């Protein structure tokens, strides 16, 4: 734990990108750039960039506040102001941060929004979140984008058409009005082409876990890998360059037969391969990760890394159908998939990445993920006869991360995996 994390070139690139974004945000007033608050799932990065706006992702700020141990204070502040103990802690962390001066993770003040772009893809709480923010920022323009849920596991033409109409008649005209910039479809297409390139690379990167040992951890490290596309860099050359660099680093690890990098260096022995469902805990992220890598467990796929877009199944932004592509992207984010789709996707991951087990990290305050997880777990266990594990924590509220409880549960789970391995080997003999 005391060791410094190893830094590869891709990590440095990402750090520079994030710092650059927060610097731009801090200087937004001087540069005259408009600021658009929006959310990761269903984020319309390419459109935001087409209008030269700067994105702010409140849930990213919340998770970064948690990693910097600031979320407890922010949550307390929100709860003093009638926010319930039982609701999304991202919301409370964000509201508390705002009440305390809206100082972002880099220590710079985050400017007020010109636009609150409310795409509540797969999460009703987003809707409530921006209702709250609208009352705090009465001058901001709220632009609502309703993404239809994939209730029948399909994106129908009428669903796409509904979204495209919203883009054409509501989103784009309002963005034009706020920014004073005319919609330039050719520019949007250029961004979408860069998105497609980045998405190809992301799919390849997460597919490298087919290797044994897996060269990456697709959950704990995976959340860093999806960072650039989830904080507004999707659709930029910088993101493409980052993913090219990351991919080449991973290919080199495969060539050398190396396992994933952990905060304490390289993982020496891959004992268990797991698929994880649910977001991580951010307040004790390192301790949480450590429980896994200390046991030789590597995560070969996770649902959380698909929250900002599912690319495993071949879908990509298509520059030739720009608005349709944005619509399909929104509908295709993980939490906008119905429960049978989620089960199928996770089952595919377990099978294709030769996972030994499936673990659910159930988040107390995130019903978008949590409601249904127990049923999913039962179905996956029945379908694949894979050992399942279950732990509970929270996003950014440290009160709901119980290290010893989680460790005990996981240790029992790993013992089960070990016994199962022994039985399988005996059966082979």
């Amino acid at each position: 734990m005391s060791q410094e994390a190893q830094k590869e070139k891709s990590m440095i690139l990402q750090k520079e990108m994030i710092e650059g974004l927060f610097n731009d945000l801090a200087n937004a007033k001087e540069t005259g750039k408009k600021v658009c608050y929006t959310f990761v799932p269903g984020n319309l990065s390419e459109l935001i960039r087409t209008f030269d706006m700067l994105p702010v992702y409140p849930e990213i700020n919340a998770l970064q506040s948690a990693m910097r141990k600031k979320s407890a204070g922010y949550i307390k502040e929100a709860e003093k102001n009638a926010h319930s103990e039982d609701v999304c802690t991202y919301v409370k962390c964000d509201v508390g941060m705002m009440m305390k001066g809206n100082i972002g993770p880099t220590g710079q003040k985050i400017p007020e929004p010109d636009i609150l772009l409310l795409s509540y893809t797969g999460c009703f709480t987003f809707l409530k979140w921006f209702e709250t923010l609208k009352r705090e920022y009465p001058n901001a323009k709220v632009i609502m984008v309703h993404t239809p849920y994939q209730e029948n596991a399909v994106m129908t033409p009428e669903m796409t058409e509904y979204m495209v109409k919203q883009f054409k008649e509501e989103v784009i005209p309002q963005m034009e009005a706020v920014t004073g910039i005319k919609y330039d479809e050719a520019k949007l297409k250029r961004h979408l082409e860069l998105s497609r390139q980045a998405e190809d690379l992301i799919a390849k990167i997460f597919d490298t876990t087919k290797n044994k040992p897996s060269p990456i951890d697709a959950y704990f490290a995976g959340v860093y890998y999806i960072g650039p596309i989830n904080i507004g860099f999707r659709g930029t050359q910088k993101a493409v360059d980052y993913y090219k660099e990351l991919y080449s680093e991973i290919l080199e690890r495969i060539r050398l037969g190396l396992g994933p990098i952990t905060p304490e260096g390289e993982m020496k022995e891959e004992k268990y391969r797991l698929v994880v469902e649910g977001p991580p805990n951010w307040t004790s992220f390192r301790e949480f990760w450590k429980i896994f890598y200390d046991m030789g467990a590597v995560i070969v796929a996770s649902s959380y890394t698909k929250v900002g877009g599912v690319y495993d199944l071949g879908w990509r932004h298509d520059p030739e159908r720009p608005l349709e592509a944005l619509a399909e992207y929104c509908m295709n984010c993980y939490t906008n998939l119905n429960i049978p789709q989620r089960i199928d996707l996770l089952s595919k991951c377990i099978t294709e990445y030769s996972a030994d087990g499936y673990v659910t990290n159930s988040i107390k305050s995130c019903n978008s993920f949590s409601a249904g997880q127990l049923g999913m777990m039962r179905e996956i266990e029945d379908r694949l006869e894979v050992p399942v594990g279950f732990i509970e924590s929270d996003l950014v509220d440290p009160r709901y991360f119980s290290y010893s409880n989680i460790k005990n549960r996981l240790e029992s789970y790993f013992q089960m995996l070990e016994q199962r391995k022994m039985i399988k080997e005996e059966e082979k003999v």
Partner: protein
Amino acid sequence: MKPLNEIIQECKQLSFDLNFTRAKNWKDEKKGRVIVGYMPIYFPREIIHAAGGLPVGIFGGGDRKQIIKGDAYYQSYICHIPRSIMELALDKHMDHFDGFIFPSICDVIRNLSGMFKQLNIGKFVKYMDFPQNFLPQIGGVFYQQEMQHVLKYIKEINGLDVTTEQLNHSIDLYNKNRQMIEFIYDIRQEFPWRLSIEDVYYIVRAGTVIPVEEHNAILEEVCSHIKQNIGIPQDKVKVVISGAFCEQPAMGLIKAIEEAGCYVVDDDYMLGSRMILGDIDAKTKNPLEAISNSYIFQSQYSSSIYDVHNPKEYRLAKIVKNRGADGVIFASASFCDPSLLDAPIFQNAFNKLGIRYIAFQYSENINQYKVIKEQVGAFSDSIKLWEDEPVVAIK
């Protein structure tokens, strides 16, 4: 005309019949009839009725169903209603239902629709994605398509094509239904002692599990009774209940609020039955468009509908004013995201507007009301003590 007590007893029986016997009998009476269950909050029941179906409200098992299987599907920090609906389904209370509709209300109900699909419960499962875009040519069109999907599912079962006349007829019946329910609330606004909120609850809830024609007949009789000068006025303050629109409080809790010194002159317990304010056009060539427009332009505020153009706190404040209420009781189901996330918005606004309120949480199977009763009693006393002070400072 039946005595009021008898009507109320019948409604009570119907409301809490977890086997939905009246619906089952109705279905058995004629071949080709279908039963479609719908979850809270709101669903345009008119279209099921027009398609030869019976829409049946599913509000969970309340405090009358022990949860065993349902708990295996939901973590402790998820509200109670999905586990009790699962329990009802897995214990075969709804085996005579043909389909299930899950209106968009929150992430839990949405994901519950997926669980029903996964477990193959019913002949169809439809997640009803109500539009959050309120332009008729965008959100309205999408909503009409959603309704068409429901009609398609029903047609696959009973083979019936729905005509404009049938839809208009159904709209007309439900218009009358809402008119009479509103009449009851209007009477209670002035004479809340004529019918307790417990009685109102039974009467309105019964309408979610029986044919609308039968419910309208009941309502007509109830309206006739309460036009009379019945009951004895008591020294109670008038309150509005807000936040209890999905998972329902146990009857004991609903009663406890009035027993503790409050007349409940408005509430959102059975919000779906009162969601549309006023009539829907029943003489139109495009009834689905009329239903869609009513949702877009005539909906009551709800924690599940994005409200930026018509803020909910001012709409609730207006109800308080119009009903002559002395305060608001925010009653939220435990872990109910939409209700709890609205709490700061309401409470901050009401602090500024000078509207008195209290807030508490419940779950449908709670059976200890002492603390809540004391809280409500203290609230009622505080209002009486300072009753001369202006309560509502809005225009």
